[in-house]
């Protein structure tokens, strides 16, 4: 056997024999015979296989599938809102013949509000802002958190110390207070809410990313990369980032829920964009007319249940992601 494994074919003698070594004397190497095969393709194939395996795991998780279906439902109605219910249905001046405070019935599936608008139309349009803000704020918080966490974990000395103190500063800052200040100082609008939530919620992510970075940083393969001559950029983006990414993704789905609730809180406090529907705005309107004490339960419950459903769905999907990344959680 060892006769046809020439050790001479090493990198020290790069040009002995014609053609690539892949098409060497062994007949048992069909892939090597094909010169089109290159390393990058192999890597892509393996990643695809991994993705397939993870998808199979995800599919076998019933709560995650239910969560995914609920999410899909809300995303579809949010995107298709203008088609399902034209914007005129929200115009108060067009709703003069509709009864106000109508309880849910066949004519008014989710009831109507104090201005005669259909609740289901408001939920539909509110989903656009609520989900957009939830996702956008989460993405912002994740990007900041990952960058800061990686930097704090990877760089030692003064630089790492300064970043760590910055993270600590944002952790101890009362985030709701900061969000209220930001959204009252900045111009009113959806973007402001996104910034306010994003800027106040990244610190805990950074902490998690940092601790994961520290544990990966001490692995031998990081040392090996250094020996191969790798600099900070290679180690940060080729080893550390892929290693913390699954954690960040799992954290993302769990944070979206929090961000949606934060958006509702800010809108409820009247700090959102009052010209746009959002579930928090609906809740605020319901409080303005004392819906809960006047017995208009549908006015309070519908936006509340919508928030609950979306947050729950994100959490269920997030838990499934976590279980895929961390097999030890599966049996729990």
């Amino acid at each position, binding site marked *: 056997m060892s006769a046809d494994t020439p*050790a001479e074919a*090493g990198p*020290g003698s790069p040009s002995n024999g014609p053609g690539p070594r892949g098409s060497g004397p062994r007949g048992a190497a069909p892939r*090597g015979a094909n010169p089109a095969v290159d390393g990058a393709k192999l890597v892509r*194939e393996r990643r695809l296989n991994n993705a397939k395996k993870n998808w199979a795991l995800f599919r076998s998780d019933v709560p995650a599938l239910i969560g995914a279906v609920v999410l899909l439902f809300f995303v579809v109605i949010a995107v298709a809102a203008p088609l399902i219910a034209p914007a005129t249905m929200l115009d108060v001046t067009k709703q003069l013949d509709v009864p106000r405070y109508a309880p849910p019935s066949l004519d008014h599936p989710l009831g109507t509000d104090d201005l005669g608008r259909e609740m289901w139309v408001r939920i539909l349009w509110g989903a656009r802002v609520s989900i957009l803000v939830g996702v956008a704020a989460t993405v912002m918080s994740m990007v900041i958190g990952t960058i800061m966490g990686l930097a704090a974990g990877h760089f030692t000395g003064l630089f790492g110390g300064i970043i760590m103190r910055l993270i600590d500063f944002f952790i101890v800052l009362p985030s709701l207070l900061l969000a209220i200040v930001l959204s009252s100082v900045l111009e009113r609008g959806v973007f402001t809410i996104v910034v306010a939530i994003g800027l106040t919620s990244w610190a805990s992510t950074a902490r998690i990313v940092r601790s994961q970075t520290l544990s990966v940083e001490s692995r031998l393969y990081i040392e090996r*990369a250094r*020996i*191969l*001559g790798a*600099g900070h950029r290679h180690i940060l983006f080729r080893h550390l980032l892929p290693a913390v990414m699954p954690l960040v993704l799992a954290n993302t789905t769990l944070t979206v829920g929090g961000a949606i609730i934060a958006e509702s809180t800010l809108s409820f406090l009247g700090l959102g964009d009052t010209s746009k529907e959002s579930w928090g705005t609906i809740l605020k309107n319901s409080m303005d007319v004392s819906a809960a004490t006047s017995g208009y339960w549908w006015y309070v419950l519908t936006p509340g249940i919508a928030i609950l459903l979306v947050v729950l769905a994100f959490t269920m999907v997030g838990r499934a992601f976590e279980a895929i990344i961390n097999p030890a959680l599966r049996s729990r």
Partner: protein
Amino acid sequence: MTDLQFEDVSITYRSSSTRGDVVAVENVSLDLPAGATLGIAGESGSGKSTLIMSALRLLPKSARLDGRVLLGGQDVRELSFGQIRAVRWAQASIVFQGALHSLNPVREVGQQIIEALEHHSKGTWTTPQKRQDRMFELLAEVNLEAAKSSAYPHELSGGQKQRIMIAMALACEPDIIIADEPTTALDVIVQKQILTGLARLVAERGISLLMISHDLAVLSAVCADLAIMRDGRLVEFGPSDEVCLAPREDYTKQLAGAFPQIGDPESRLRPKTQRPAEVARAEPFTMTDEVVLEAKDLSVSFDTRRGRERAVRGVDLVLRKAEILAVVGQSGSGKTTLARSLLGLQEVEEGSQRSFAGKPLPRKAKALRTFRRQVQMILQDPAGSLNPKRSVYEAVVEGLRVQGIRDREYERVVGALEAAELTPAEDYLESIPQELSGGQRQRVVIAGALALDPQVLIADEPVASLDASVRGEILSLFLALKKNLGMSALIITHDLGLAWNIADTVAVMKSGEIVEYGEVDRVLSDPQHEYTQELLAAVPRLGSQSLVRNE
């Protein structure tokens, strides 16, 4: 006195994975009469640990045991929980593999010995005072000062921790001691201390000893009988000298030959292996006078809690082209620090000189990167040196990408893998590290270094974590790389046999200083420094309970 008998024992692990049930032990019958010493040798996966765990019913729930395990004539399976609890430690006790993980890190070791007494005392050590006295007695028996009883595990060295484990095993005066690889992580000198201590206790008290190890020499140094296991089956059984010196089975010969006898000309520059690496050059490279890597007056210090500690003190070292230099020493002698500083991974003290090909080592990041193209290092643990999420191809290509070598990437990777004798290379490109054996992983790590076409390879304990048969393969690969490519290598090891197997020159290190440095034949055949002599004497030799008798 208690006998231990394994009667036609088979142990199967139920597994829900696609592999189905795994048979770990198959139809093994062994006898350990009272007062006997028996060694079981085998490579990882041979089922030897599983077998001895069954003696005290310590197997996980997923294991099914067929046949009978008799302890003092009683079937272990038929004992009630209370009875087995009484048997554990009082009749038979275990020295577990890896003392580091078997001791509770947050309790004083003395308390941990007392714990064993509290749980299993047979009415002898009934009061705290008696238990305390017994604990000091035990520490004295394993040659530890009484003051060590209030130490925490992390404050003790590996050998001291192992002695605590042995003291714990002796605590309740058992009839049988079962030792699972008791010296694997230790260097030769500490290994000798532990083995002689263990053998003395066994002889004095008539305890029977069941010891398992992958190293035949270690077993034959202590045990009178030897059993060889492979893939769950018993391959050979007999008196230790007979099995070691006149083995009947091929597999036993292979195991016995894996660790060379220093001074034996047959194994000099010829590591024994079933799969030797091919030397393809008509005129293989041999050691030249051209100096590649040189260190002069190299010193390294660390800041520790107890102030500044000097790990390396004024070391002079020269590595020539196509030379294999082995740096030998006990753990803690500063070998690894020396290697890291030669590579520029470690800050050195003022006045230390390091040069490569006549030029001083660069300090700037970019120049250091180019330098590392020439000098590569292989880390101690192949399993940890590979990113578990990346395929073999990605692992090997990493160096090329880092160094900005873009042309003929695929050919270079395949070439490096074949130079590391991982063939056919194409079959392994997509594998991820978990799918490979220890030896294959080490080859991937070596290939990753070879892909850069370096002139010098520094290897830190390249075979310490590998099985005996794989050890020979990897060592012969190092020799082939030298002969085929003219590569120089600096190999760090605590294993003198490795130096005898492949090195041209050897440097013996003690407490950060090189005490003896010269040609392997001269240093190992005729050692001048007493430390070298001590190291050589501590290496266990095959047969005749050598360590015990020489004492």
